[in-house]
């Protein structure tokens, strides 16, 4: 069983603000899914290597050479808030309000 509190904690890790209705719904749905998923824990997997790579695990290297890129203006153009050169975000370091 995954409690609503646990869902709230996990949602926080995933940067999701959920409504109370969503928390209740996900708590019951995830409990039933994980109940079913528990089956895999009955498998004897001693000594089995996990699949960390889909097919090949070779490292891929390339020469460190400069190539044309998109450019700053183009890259920020699709952002919801921009000054034309950078992304605009709310203040990251918050100052305490003066008394």
């Amino acid at each position, binding site marked *: 069983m995954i409690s609503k509190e646990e869902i709230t904690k*996990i949602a926080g890790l995933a940067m999701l603000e959920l*409504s109370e209705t969503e928390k209740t719904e996900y708590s019951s749905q995830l409990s039933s899914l994980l109940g079913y998923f528990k089956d895999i824990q009955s*498998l004897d997997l001693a000594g089995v290597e*996990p699949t960390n790579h*889909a*097919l090949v695990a070779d490292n891929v290297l390339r020469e460190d050479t400069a190539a044309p890129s998109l450019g700053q203006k183009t890259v920020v153009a*699709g952002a919801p808030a921009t000054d034309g050169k950078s992304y605009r975000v709310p203040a990251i370091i918050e100052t305490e309000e003066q008394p």
Partner: protein
Amino acid sequence: MSENYIKYANYKEMPVHFKPAHEIRRMIDAKEISEAELTKMAVERASSSNGVLNAFLSISGGGAELAGGKNSFWAGIPVALKDNIVTKGIKTTAGSKILENYTPIYDATVVQKLKNAGASIIGKTNMDEFAMGSSTENSAFGVTKNPWDITRVPGGSSGGSAVAVASGSAYMALGSDTGGSIRQPAALCGVCGMKPTYGRVSRYGLIAFASSLDQIGPFTRDALDMAHALDAICGHDPKDSTSSAAPAESFSDFVKKGMDMNGVKIGIPDEYFGEGIEQGVSDRVKEAIGQFEKMGAKIVSVKLPHTKYAIPVYYLIATAEASSNLSRFDGVKYGFRAAEFKNLKDMYMKTRDEGFGAEVKRRIILGTYALSSGYYDAYYKTAQKARTKIKEDFQDAFSRADLILSPVTPAAAFKIGEKTADPLTMYMSDIFTISANLASIPALSIPCGLSGGMPVGLQLSGNYFQEGKMLAAAYEFQKRTDHHLCVAAV
């Protein structure tokens, strides 16, 4: 009541919009039809049917601005793209509100390749949000309908691409397949669909869902067209470090050469014919096995004993990867940002809450849970080990058989709304397709008849990079049968 489908005797009898691309290529070359006429017709069909089918999220004018590729197979042929494949200057939403205003600044490698081949891109197709779903009911932009019966789902997540081909609006459409998202809608809409070997096609410019499982592939009328589509989109790409340098023969030449089916060993996994399969599906697939036997193939029994673990393994790995991939949608770099928020963290949380739909949030939570400390070993790591066992099952099966044959889905297309209440019921509809993604092998779906008036798909899987053999066997089947000549009456 008139039938919901039409069965043609051959390609010659088919109207132009339903003919396979190789027939259209011949017609263009013989000057029986012009490229401009084709694009005009495709755009008109897509536009006029969209009010009912909702297969397209955007329809463009086609290939007028495209250069090059004059001698290529796809030159001038109308094609469609799933809306999670980025297109420079054309809105790409992945079926999500969080990307409702996203206009990419570059083309995916597959789009660049199709443009180089001169294909006429007529539109972007509807899909389950971020490819998470099996019915195209999870799109932020409405449900796509099955052209065979508009009260039923087209399957998903690439439902729009399947419908684009099934309704005769495009001769080829690209989709993406993470757990069956090409093969399942192909089966449910009566067209062909293929998931190539992991790495065969570059994922550069595919909006990521689960990076170790995602693969782009085509929907077409027949197996020869699938081979032509794979010729156009495959190959190593320096921009996708997981794309393979495996040599790619000309798949279409290989298929056209024909394959002697005598002695070709086709493996039938017992685990795929258990209870819970619709009678009509089981019957059609068994008839197809009989057909392959008649063609000289040797039918052998193979075992895939870890099949029953595939759904948990898949949903744990896919959601874990998704929770990481979707962290990039934060209201800063592109797409949607919540209108009101108190501070930076609040902006992230509100943007993601308002921007993502219910299924996407459910999967992010599940994936975050499976990766969180305390549960990582019990869920994620166990799933990765079980994935190794599933891979081993297939390697063992391919030591006994050249190809594996199975149903694509346990049942034909279900009713809209039938499975939305319980996620597990929906997830179970992927039971026969997800193993190929976990094992990284290629698999395709071709029509093999009807069950209750709705199409049934037959799945052929091959070992790594054996697409040629798989496609050739599928085409040999189609040369001797007429299931692919049966189309929705639209």
